[in-house]
């Protein structure tokens, strides 16, 4: 590890307890000047709590914090800011209808002699900061007009205006495109050169390997390991995070290709899709990739009957599917796990059992009356097999973690005896341990003979689960690859519409 006099933040034996739960148990963390230090761990591991303590939102129960070698007391957010610690949260804290400049200097307007705001100085300084991080926009632009990536940059600019010494980034790339991520990394490198220490909280291990210098792993409130990135590997990190060795994030037991189950021909919708055609076989996993706005979710919705279709047709096992009717789609054996699991997938106020059985009520009822015993038995099977962490079947799903909620949704479709299942971003926002489990389930689905379509924007997942990859751009299919012929660069080229890679045989 780097020598001590370069250490800007030294967290020693910090503990924090909440009623019934020890969130942090004597953890240590050292952050050096100009170092990008990753903080990883499953949901609930303690990362959030530590960050909130450093930000002054919570107060430590025990331990010491040294800043630039001196012990400090961070009792309020103001204390934290004064020290030079700035947190860029996932939910950005900008004021949408104010300008970039106003937001950047929100807590520290430059004043003229007569105590009125010196607007010229404000905008000039803002422009300087924006230039320094390569953000080429006018400082008078209103926030709501900017993209998420640009807003993130403004948050960073705000940190710089306070002459931050430590910047903490919480899941910074969750809403960014690959290009924007690259840009962010460039800015981070610049910040490093200025000697700013960066704490980088993320789920994406590939980013850790790409941009970070050191990585610390938390699990269950305890420090598990702290290493240089150069001296470790993804597998080792995953093992530390989860506490057991995961052979691989992408298990494959399914063998692959049966008959063609799903046949989509020249599907077009009014707004987005243009003559989309593809096939999925029984036991096959087709991964669909595309940037934001490529039309993946539109495709899923059109397939499922949630959106109107202008032209084209869909057939399942050779039988034509009536378009635009969700109940028809369900009857023909189509299942759809939505991207927005809370908004469109789960009925949050209903229990685990009730959510699992929702599409299958006729199977567990007689004469219109639900057979409760059978409902319990069937759902308990899934809870056991999928290892869904819930205190009881009657627990409302809103209390489950994201990963377990996703498992509930998958259980729902498995109960239904489907022929085709569409999974839209199945592991978004889910920590590594749960991700692996879901990939295992996807594999399981394929083994059972389903035609599986997985839509994802995470490259490692795409490459890891798919037998066959389809790339979409602006509502059209621009690339098709087999597992063997797939390569990240080619996929990205197709995704931005630069090149088209059509399969010879189809």
């Amino acid at each position, binding site marked *: 590890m780097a020598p001590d006099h370069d250490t800007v933040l030294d967290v020693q034996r910090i503990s924090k307890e*909440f*009623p*019934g*739960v020890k*969130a942090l148990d004597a953890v240590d963390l050292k952050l050096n000047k100009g170092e990008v230090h990753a903080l990883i761990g499953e*949901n*609930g*591991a*303690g990362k*959030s*709590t530590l960050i*909130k303590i450093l930000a002054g*939102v*919570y*107060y430590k129960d025990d331990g010491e914090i040294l800043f630039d070698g001196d012990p400090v007391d961070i009792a*309020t957010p103001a204390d934290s800011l004064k020290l030079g610690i700035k947190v860029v949260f996932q939910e950005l804290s900008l004021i949408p209808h104010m300008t970039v400049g106003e937001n950047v200097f929100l807590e520290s307007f430059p004043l003229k002699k007569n105590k009125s705001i010196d607007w010229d100085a404000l905008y000039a300084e803002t422009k300087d900061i924006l230039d320094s991080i390569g953000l080429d926009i006018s400082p008078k632009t209103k926030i709501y007009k900017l993209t998420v990536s640009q807003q993130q940059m403004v948050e960073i600019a705000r940190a710089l205006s306070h002459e931050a010494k430590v910047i903490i980034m919480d899941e910074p790339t969750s809403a960014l495109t690959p290009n924007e991520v690259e840009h962010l990394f460039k800015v981070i490198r610049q910040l490093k050169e200025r000697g700013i220490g960066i704490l980088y909280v993320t789920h994406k291990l590939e980013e850790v390997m790409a941009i970070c210098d050191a990585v610390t792993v938390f699990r*269950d*409130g305890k420090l598990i390991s702290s290493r240089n990135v150069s001296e470790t590997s993804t597998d080792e990190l995953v093992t530390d995070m989860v506490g057991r060795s995961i052979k691989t994030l992408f298990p494959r037991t399914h063998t692959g290709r049966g008959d063609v189950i799903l046949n989509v021909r020249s599907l077009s919708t009014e707004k987005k899709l243009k003559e989309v055609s593809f096939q999925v076989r029984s036991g096959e996993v087709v991964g669909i990739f595309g940037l934001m706005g490529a039309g993946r979710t539109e495709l899923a919705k059109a397939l*499922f009957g*949630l959106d109107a279709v202008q032209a084209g047709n869909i057939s399942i096992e050779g039988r034509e599917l009536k378009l635009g009717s*969700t*109940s028809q*789609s*369900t*009857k023909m054996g189509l299942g*759809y796990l*939505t991207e927005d699991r809370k*908004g*469109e*997938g*789960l*009925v*949050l*106020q*209903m229990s685990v059992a*009730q959510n699992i059985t*929702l*599409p299958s*009520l*006729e199977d567990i*009822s007689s004469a*219109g*009356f*639900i057979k409760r015993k059978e409902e319990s038995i069937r759902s308990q099977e899934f809870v056991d097999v999928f290892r869904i*962490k*819930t*205190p*009881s079947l*009657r*627990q*409302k799903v*809103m*209390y*489950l*973690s*994201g990963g377990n909620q996703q498992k509930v949704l998958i259980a*729902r479709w498995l109960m239904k005896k489907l022929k085709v299942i569409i999974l839209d971003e199945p592991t978004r*926002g889910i920590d590594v341990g749960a991700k692996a489990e879901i990939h295992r389930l996807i594999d399981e689905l394929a083994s059972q003979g389903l035609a599986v379509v997985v839509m994802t924007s995470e490259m490692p997942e795409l490459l890891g689960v798919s037998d066959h990859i389809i790339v979409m751009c602006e509502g059209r299919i621009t690339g098709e690859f087999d597992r063997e012929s797939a390569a990240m660069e080619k996929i990205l080229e197709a995704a931005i519409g630069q090149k088209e890679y059509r399969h010879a045989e189809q």
Partner: protein
Amino acid sequence: MHSASSIPEEAECIKWSLAVPSTDSISKGSFLTKLVLFNEIILVAVLVVISAAISIGTSQFYSTTNILNILRDSSMAIIAGIGMTMLLITGEVDLSIGSLVAFVGVVTMDIINKTNSVFLGVLAGLSLGALTGLINGLVRTKLKVNSLIGTIAMMMILRGSVYLYKLEAAQNYHQLSSFYSIGNGYLGFMPIPVIIMVILYVVFLIILYRTVLGRRLYATGGNEIAAKISGIKVDNLKILTFVANSVFAAISGIILVSRMNSGQPNAGVGFELMVISGVILGGTSLGGGEGTLVGTLVGLLILRVINNGIIILRWNQDLQIVISGLIIILAVFIDNKRKVARSKIITK
């Protein structure tokens, strides 16, 4: 600011993985937490306390006559409340039931007068209800008009139309005894409206909690898209619920016209607000997906008991609205606290 009582998300996540008992059984939370999580028990307690307090004030509260009066009078609102609860569970609302009660009353009385048949009159009233519900349902599902606005429009249309149908009140010409007994009669010692209410209540209690149909109502209100994706025919279900709701309101209207002995075009004013207040007081959410018939029963009884108590205690009648309003605010306040307590322990 660093309060220990605000539980962070991740801490709860760890807690659940240690298999803490669910919210269905007595949890390890503080007493206040438990109280807050069992909404219906609080309501029953409120009803008991208010009744006890009134009884202390006057011996006439707890007499057979009074209790039966309260039940008979509440039966109209409770019957309408059954329908309204189910409608709210699906995420919709109907503000036209007050006007419908008036219109059904006038039509029923008028048809009985013209045909000398109670059966035909009742049939006409129920049909009017069903038709109104059908229109409400179609306006919501086919025209995609928000049900609040759509049913307010229907309320105005009905209120105006009843005067087009008949300008004065419809008097009772034939004085048929079967008509009189609908609202005023007894079966044994039980008033007939109460019997009707109990039968409907029990039947729909079973339907809501034990059948596929009931489960689908909750799903439709809880998350309409999830329900659609699960193959539920959401539009048909909503139309059905609108029709049921209006038919229930029509039944109330028929009981009322029998009790009033004339069809009054100006009846039912404020009825919809009273029913909805009682239903929400009972714990059904305006947002859909949550609702309890038990809560509706207790909520409406509480409102009725307050009104009754104020009169027999000879207090100023203006207090009726004031106290009802305070109880409603209190109930919504507790409900909000309950929701916040719940959301504080939602994990990501």
